[in-house]
Structure formats: C-alpha cells, structure tokens
C-alpha cells in the first residue's frame, strides 16, 4: 500500500468489532455510521415512493386503498425529511470531512457527537415504531387540528421528530464550536473551504430553528394526551398558530437541506474544473444571505391559510429576495467552470445535474412566491414537483456529488466510472421524467395527496411513475457498483482528484489519528498552482 505511513493502519481497521464502532468517538466513524443509517432510511423512504407512484399509475384504486395511500405518502415524506435529507449531508459528510478540512483532530465535543447520533437514532426508532403501533396518516406536516383528532399513532412520530431534533441541535452546536476553535494554524476565515462556510451557516440555522419545531411538536403531543388546547379550535386554540410555528422551522429546514449541498457543489466544481473558485467571498456571503432570509419567509407556505393581506404581500416580496443570493451562487459556479480544465468525472457530472435541476426548482419557486399564481397552484402537484426539484434535485444530487467525491477518501477504494455513468444517466433522466410531468398536471389542477385522479391526467401520471422506477433502477445499480468497489475496488491514492483541501492531505482511508504532524495552512482551499 503506497503512501501509507502507519503500516496500513487506518480509521477503519484501527479497532475491530461491532462494539468498537458503536462506542467510537472518532468523527470519521460517526460520519460513516450516520451515512449507513441514513441510507437504510433512504431505502425505506424510497420503497414507499415507488409504491406511491405505483398506486398513481392508474386512476382509481390500483394497488392500495385511500387510507393505505395516505399512510404511504406520510411515511415517504416523514422519513425522507427527518431521517434522510436533513441529517444526510451535515451529519454524515459534515462529520467525516469537516474536522479534517479544518486540520483538526476531531470535533470540539467528541462524546457529544456520539450522543447526537444515538439521540437522533432513538428519535428515528420511536418514529418508526409507529409503523407497528398504528401508522400515521397526517402527511409530514402534522397540521392541526387533524393531527390532534386522528386515531393513528401521531404521538409516536411527533415524539420521534422531537427527539431527532435534539440530535441535529447537538451536531450543529458541535460544528459551530469546532469551526470557531479548532482551525489549524494559518487557516484564516478567508482560507476556509466553502463547504465549511456552508456547514457553518447550516449549523446556525439548525441551532436556532429546530428548538421551535421541537417545542411545537411536543405541544401537539400534549394536545393529544392532555388537551392543552393551544392549537385546538374546539378549546379556543388556533390551528394557524401551529402552521406559523411549524413553518418557522420547516422553511429554514429547506436551507438546512440545501445549503450543505451547495457547499459540496462549491467544493466539487473547482477541484474537477482545476480552477480557483470564482467569487469566493460572494459564495460565502451568499450562504449567510440565504440563511438570514430563510428565517423571514415562512409565511409563503400559508398564503391561503387566512393570513392578513399585508403579511401575504410582505412574505411574497421577501421570498423573491431568496433568488438573489441563490443566483449569485449559481453564476459563481458557472463562472468557475468557464475556461476551466473540466474533468468529467462523477462528482462533476452530479454537480452539473445539481445546477440544472436546482435552477428549475428555484425558478418554479418564484411562481409559488407570487401571490396570484400561488393561489392557483397551492396544494397541487406543481408544489410537489417544485419541492422535489429542490430537495431531491438539490440535496440528493449534491449528496451524490459528495458521495462520489469523498467515497475514495472514506473507503480507500475507487468505484467503476463506467457503471457510475450509467447510474448517473438513469438517476438524472429518471428524475426529470418523474417530476417534470408533475409541473404540468399540477398547473392543470391535479391536487396533491389523493390516491385517485381524473382520467385526463392518466398519461402524464404514467410517465411520472415510469420515471420513478427508472430512478429506482439507477439507485440499485449505484448500490451494486459501490458495494463492489468497497470489496473489490482498486486502492485509492491519497488525493485522486488533485484537491487542495486538507482532508486530501492524508492517506485514503485516513489514519485513526488525524494528521501525524499538525498541518500549517499556507494557501487557499482552491489554490491549485501553489499547492502542487
């Protein structure tokens, strides 16, 4: 094994046995544990999605009753939001690469880091336990008063989401302190990799928004158990207040999902275009611009919920502002690509997919931010298509860029580029085939969350369902070539892409103790001329 200074010792083989993993406080192993657990939930949520699309293949009852369908999309949404998309990039990739990018030995509070994992896992298991108790059918938004009245096991899922929230809060707290206090000598704020900036902004949003949702969900549990009445109109409470609290978290949550993906794209593009990033400070500050605006636009989810017209107007106006920092980022990425030495490897291909899909997601958001068209499009498939273009197109494409970028570092193996390209094509095409028709049926008036639709929408729904199964095949293929790479892949060199950030300055996989010699940073994160 070339380039290995520890006789082949690394974080994966430093200690053996299941217990050495379950009790580890090493940030790299915790990152891998998050990744593994999240991918298990991603599989479950994905199967639910396939079943949802199967039911919608034909109008009327195709596969399941209306009640089962309600539960199916509820679990798809709840699992994908709380157990996949939110923890995915910060907790899995953030844990693995962030301390190394800073030249740190670990996160600031390693024991708290392990505790975060178990708190989050405990919450996820409590929420999943509802499957065997009496499944949930409220949709992932838990709107009152239905979530108070429903006889399905809402309390389990609400309590689970409450507990999972604290896992995220502790991780955020840990990352903020790590970024502030554990940077290597010479790693000034202006030399931080953009993924670190993105993780920093995400952590601030998560730290400030999650507690609001946590308490709100707990109040709904109290509504169900003791009739506290704050959100219950029967007792004089206000269900719209629940919506305000819910979206005060859940809108920023969209940026908890999107910002880290943008951070990955900002890493991947300069490395694979062999070019200094364009507009370093513009991207870093736009990240905070988005994080700031994220907190004052929640009302755009409630244009038809009986808000005052003035509130609607203001929320609509401020929502438009989100497009500005987002546009700054997209243009900076494109400008970075301009006249770059592009290497069309998997991370860059996924970055292209991200920019393409996320731009559509962002632009259709403007339709929804505009008051007039919003009233027409609310609760239609247009909204479903829009947020899938943002969440899947943004977060999942960004995550896949990161997965293919850091897989050699995490596993010490290279994957097959050929099969990866086939899988990329299936996922990217399948995604657009699935969700683009939903914009059309949505604008024609097909409401979301029904197991049935009028026959006129059949063709577009069938295209959408076929697209979903193409995505499914793409992911199965990806699982196969990544598993093959894990066991049979060629050994990865320490820095296969020629990146300049610090995680690549170590062996692949990295040794158990990061950095034998404390690194001293003398150049910027994308300075490819002086670093080689």
């Amino acid at each position: 094994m070339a380039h290995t200074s520890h006789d082949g010792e690394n974080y994966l083989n430093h200690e053996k046995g299941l217990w050495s993993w379950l009790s580890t406080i090493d940030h790299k192993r915790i990152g891998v544990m998050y990744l593994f657990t999240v991918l298990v939930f991603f599989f479950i949520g994905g199967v639910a999605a396939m079943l949802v699309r199967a039911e919608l293949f034909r109008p009327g009852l195709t596969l399941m009753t209306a009640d089962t369908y309600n539960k199916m999309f509820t679990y798809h949404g709840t699992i994908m939001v709380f157990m996949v998309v939110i923890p995915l990039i910060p907790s899995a990739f953030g844990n693995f690469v962030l301390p190394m990018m800073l030249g740190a030995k670990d996160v600031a509070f390693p024991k708290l880091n392990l505790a975060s994992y178990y708190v989050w896992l405990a919450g996820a298991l409590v929420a999943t336990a509802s499957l065997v108790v009496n499944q949930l059918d409220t949709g992932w938004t838990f709107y009152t008063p239905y979530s108070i009245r429903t006889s399905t096991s809402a309390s389990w899922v609400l309590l689970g989401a409450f507990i999972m929230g604290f896992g995220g809060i502790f991780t955020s707290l840990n990352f903020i302190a790590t970024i502030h206090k554990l940077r290597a000598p010479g790693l000034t704020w202006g030399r931080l990799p953009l993924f670190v900036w993105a993780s920093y902004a995400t952590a601030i949003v998560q730290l400030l928004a999650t507690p609001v949702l946590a308490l709100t969900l707990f109040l709904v549990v109290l509504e169900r158990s003791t009739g506290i009445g704050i959100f219950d109109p029967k007792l004089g409470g206000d269900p719209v207040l629940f919506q305000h609290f819910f979206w005060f978290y859940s809108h920023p949550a969209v940026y908890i999902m999107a910002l880290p993906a943008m951070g990955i794209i900002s890493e991947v593009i300069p490395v694979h275009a062999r070019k200094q990033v364009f507009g370093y400070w513009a991207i870093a500050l736009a990240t905070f611009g988005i994080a700031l605006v994220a907190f004052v636009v929640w009302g755009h989810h409630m244009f038809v919920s009986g808000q005052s017209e003035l509130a609607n107007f203001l929320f609509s106006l401020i929502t438009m502002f989100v497009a500005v920092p987002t546009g700054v980022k997209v243009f900076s990425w494109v400008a970075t690509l301009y006249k770059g030495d592009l290497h069309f490897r998997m991370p860059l291909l996924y970055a292209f997919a991200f920019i393409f899909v996320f731009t559509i997601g962002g632009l259709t958001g403007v339709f929804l931010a505009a008051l007039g068209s919003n009233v027409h499009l609310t609760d239609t498939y247009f909204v479903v298509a829009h947020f899938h273009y943002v969440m899947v197109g943004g977060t999942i494409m960004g995550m896949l860029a990161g997965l293919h970028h850091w897989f050699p570092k995490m596993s010490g193996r290279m994957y097959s580029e050929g099969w990866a390209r086939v899988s990329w094509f299936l996922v990217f095409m399948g995604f657009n085939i699935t969700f683009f028709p939903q914009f059309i049926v949505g604008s024609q008036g097909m409401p979301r969350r029904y197991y049935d639709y009028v026959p006129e929408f059949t063709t577009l729904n069938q295209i959408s369902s076929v697209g979903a199964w193409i995505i499914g095949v793409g992911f199965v293929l990806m699982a196969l070539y990544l598993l093959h790479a894990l066991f049979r892949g060629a050994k990865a060199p320490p820095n296969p892409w020629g990146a300049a950030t610090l995680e690549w300055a170590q062996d692949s996989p990295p040794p158990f103790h990061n950095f034998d010699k404390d690194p001293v940073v003398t150049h910027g994160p994308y300075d490819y001329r002086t670093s080689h």
Partner: protein
Amino acid sequence: MAHAPAMDGNRQYAHHFLSADHEFETSKQGIWLFLLQEVLFFSPLFVAYYVFRGLHPADWHAAAQLLDWRMGALNTVILICSSLTMALAVHGAQTSNKKKLVVNLILTLGLACGFLVVKYFEYTHKFHMGIYPAGAFTYEGLGQYPAAKLYFSIYYAMTGLHGIHVLGGMAVMLWVLKRAMRGEFNAHYYTPVEMTGLYWHFVDLVWIYLFPILYLLG
C-alpha cells in the same frame, strides 16, 4: 481569556485541544450556543402567550387574578438568591476554596428545592379548584371568560417546562457536587462548575420573564 483558568502544564485535556485554556474556552462557547437554542425552545410559548393575550385581553386579565403574586414573588426571591449562591460556588472553585464551593452548591440545591415546593403548593391549590389545562378545565368561576382556560394551558406549559429545567439543573448540580466533594475542582480546572453556573443563571432568567407576564401583567 480573562476568565480562563491559569494554564497548568500538568492538567490533562483532551487530545484535540492545544491546552487546558483552549478546552475551557471551547466548552464555554458550547454552553453559550446551547443556551441560545434554549431561548428559541421557550419562544413558541411566549409567542402563544402574546397572541392569545392580544385576542382575549379581558379573559387574560381575569385568569391572571387567580394566580397569587406573593407566591410568584417568593419564588423570584428564592431563585435570585440561588443565582447568588451559584456565583459564589463558581468563585469558590476559581479560588480553589473547596469548602466555599461545596457549601454554596448545597445552598443552591436547597433553594432550588424550595422553589419546587412553592410551585407544588401552587399547582395542587389550582388542581383542587379544577384549574387544569384547557381540555380538563372544570373551574366555573370564570364562566364569562371562555379563553381563561387557555391562559392556564399556557401557564402550565411555561412553568412546567421551566420546572423541568430546574429539575435538570438540580441533577447536574448533584453530579457537580459529588465531584466537588472528591476535590476534583480547583483554580486550574472548574469547567463543569462554570458551565452549570451559566445554565442555572439562564433558568433563573427565564423565571424573571415568567413572573411578570404571568403574575403581574394580567
């Protein structure tokens, strides 16, 4: 770094820090971030309080009359005193004065118990009158003020959540006390005492807001 402990070459610190001071400063930032999210954790209840107060000012006023401001004031005095004893405990640790540290921690724990005892009497008194959260509210003296029962929902939610924080603080203090009696803290290392102190002052501060809006403002 003014409040950081004097650096001690013999003091153990975790391998990813440069020094004991570095570890202390990082822990302190961690606890401040935790307290920041605590503020947001309480915030929905404050918002709910003001929303319903704005909607039903007369009901709010009538319901608040049922709370005994003297009990609230007593508890305010108790908690302010406990903040003083907590600060003295931290000072004891900073000056390697074990006796001062242990005595003041015990005093703080005693005052926290006193707070909960007062709260217990307030709660049971209300329960006897049938004043429960809205769904179980049976008190009939406020018949013309239908939103009054929401006031008590919010009262129980706010003071209950605060009470849970008091209990949590007491549990941490017991752990700190045990370590203090073993002589683990001195001028070179008192991070857990300082962090517990910051948390305890936060819990007091929440009450400083709860007391006027629930007992006095009406």
